[in-house]
């Protein structure tokens, strides 16, 4: 049978909508799951997705992508890459898979909500492909690390992380439950498709794929490219939704939605991307610092995109720029110091040469972060390894669930911002995290950070060992140790001997 060209039938098919006869439209599309902003259905019917694809085309393309990803993996499965890559790159993979694999499955459920409750028929159509995309991403990113489990049990966190109360997982879960799992279809698409995917991850995947190719991990490079090509398509669900909101007098709400989500995702993104770029990727293979990447690929583009659709840059932009200089450096220090609490082996990665690179890329690094690592380096050189393990916990932000930290040394910027609500005191790392809480306290007020859980008696025994077991350490796998076996201090030992 001859097939019509796509353009001859596409608009009719994807615009299929109907007037419900047995239930009201409000029952079919409850506002709390669909559109709480009261925008007329006729307006939603103007939703025009920029990327058009038919189901037949989708299946054909996806089959080719899958075939390519799996065949590259199969072809390289006997290579010695993982024997030779070193623990820095292994940390990139373990952090990535543990953080991302089942989050993709959550994203599949989120897209499914748009498929069912999206108020626009073309949005529902496009989200159907997005849902299938995310399912594929979850499958790929569960399957690929599974092959590595026999070599190192820490890769099993790809499957297990989401089922634990590891502090880093709690941070991711809090954020993604907020923006993805517990929002209506419209708010969710602004938060995920625009603020997160368009703003941050789509571009990051291009960088990550390049980094993977630079270190010779062509399996991972190919995998990420495969995922990114889906992301570039389904991320486009966000822009038409924002345009409709702005056109219908909901600019203020759209702005707030984006500002909440961009900050929430940024706090995680900086850790999962910034630390690998500036610390885990071997020095000779780094092509951009995280800061350079942010300025070149994210900042200008995000501002241009929000302004193009009639919104403004987030109110906290100056604080965001300052965070680019600091957040991931703080968390590299924290993650390394509390390394037994994570499922990868973070290298200190602050040898004399690496510190010189950090100073070049982040002027003032040595005078600030350098003082922190000086103490650690001195302890290691003097054989006091035990002093590199803090005996207490850092306080955790009640929004991003990340240790409250800031620039050390003379600047001494670490500071807790507090807020009282219904008799409970909440601790926040930054003004945006505190602000997000105040936008909807009922949404956030009952959550307890890992530190709150320790003092509320939920974690038993209330000791460091008890905390580790509660977080899945020693249960799923052993926790982390220095990924370079402290080899990065040898340059300082040599300097001291001269």
């Amino acid at each position: 049978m001859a097939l019509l060209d796509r353009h001859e039938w596409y608009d009719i098919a994807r615009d299929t909508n109907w007037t419900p006869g047995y239930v009201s439209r409000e029952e079919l599309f409850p506002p709390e799951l669909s559109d709480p902003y009261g925008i007329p259905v006729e307006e939603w019917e103007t939703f025009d997705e920029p990327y058009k694809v038919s189901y037949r085309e989708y299946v054909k393309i996806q089959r080719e992508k899958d075939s390519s990803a799996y065949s590259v993996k199969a072809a390289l499965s006997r290579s010695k890459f993982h024997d030779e890559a070193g623990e820095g790159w292994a940390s990139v993979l373990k952090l990535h898979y543990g953080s991302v694999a089942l989050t993709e499955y959550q994203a599949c459920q989120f897209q499914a909500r748009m498929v069912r409750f999206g108020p626009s028929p073309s949005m529902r159509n496009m989200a159907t492909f997005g849902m299938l995309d995310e399912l594929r991403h979850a499958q790929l990113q569960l399957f690929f690390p599974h092959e590595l489990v026999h070599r190192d049990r820490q890769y099993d966190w790809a499957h297990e992380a989401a089922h634990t109360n590891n502090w880093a997982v709690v941070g991711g879960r809090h954020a993604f439950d907020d923006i993805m799992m517990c929002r209506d279809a419209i708010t969710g698409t602004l938060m995920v498709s625009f603020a997160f995917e368009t703003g941050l991850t789509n571009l990051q995947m291009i960088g990550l794929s390049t980094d993977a190719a630079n270190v010779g991990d062509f399996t991972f490079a190919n995998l990420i490219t495969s995922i990114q090509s889906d992301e570039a398509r389904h991320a486009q669900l966000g822009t038409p939704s924002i345009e409709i909101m702005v056109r219908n007098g909901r600019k203020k709400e759209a702005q707030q939605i984006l500002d909440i989500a961009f900050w929430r995702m940024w706090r995680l993104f900086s850790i999962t991307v910034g630390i690998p770029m500036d610390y885990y990727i071997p020095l000779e293979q780094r092509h951009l610092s995280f800061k350079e990447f942010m300025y070149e690929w994210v900042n200008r583009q995000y501002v241009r995109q929000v302004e193009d659709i009639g919104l403004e840059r987030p109110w906290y932009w100056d604080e965001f720029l300052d965070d680019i200089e600091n957040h991931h450096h703080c968390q590299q220090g924290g993650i390394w110091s509390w390394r037994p609490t994570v499922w990868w082996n973070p290298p200190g990665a602050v040898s004399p040469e690496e510190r010189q690179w950090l100073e070049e890329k982040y002027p003032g690094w040595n005078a600030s972060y350098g003082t922190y690592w000086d103490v650690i380096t001195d302890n290691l050189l003097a054989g006091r390894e035990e002093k590199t393990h803090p005996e207490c916990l850092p306080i955790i932000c009640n929004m991003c669930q990340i240790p409250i930290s800031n620039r050390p040394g003379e600047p001494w910027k670490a500071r807790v911002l507090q807020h009282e609500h219904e008799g409970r005191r909440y601790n926040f790392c930054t003004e945006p995290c505190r602000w997000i809480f105040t936008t909807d306290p009922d949404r956030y007020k009952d959550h307890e950070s890992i530190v709150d859980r320790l003092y509320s008696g939920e974690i038993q025994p209330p000791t460091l060992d008890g905390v580790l077991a509660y977080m899945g350490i020693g249960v799923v796998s052993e926790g982390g140790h220095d990924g370079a076996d402290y080899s990065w201090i040898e340059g300082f030992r040599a300097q001291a001997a001269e």
Partner: protein
Amino acid sequence: MDNFPILSRFQHDCHVKVVDTQASDTIAELAAACAHQSVGVHVKDQPGKILRVRPTTDDDNAEPFSPDITVKDAGLAMYDCIDVYFTDPQS
């Protein structure tokens, strides 16, 4: 459990740390407990200087507590933030 957590913002440290204290501890003992978690771990010692403790405020200018009073007398409660900082013994 008599212990409760105080948030230690120790001078020059990168992280704000949770330090257990109890109402009967003196401020000097609290300062020592905070120093144990920071000095020689993430912060260089400053020999010859002493530690003082003050409530954390926006402009960092609160009066320090007397080292001899107790945590209870200082009015410190769960999740109160304190600055712990080095100073000359004469100051």
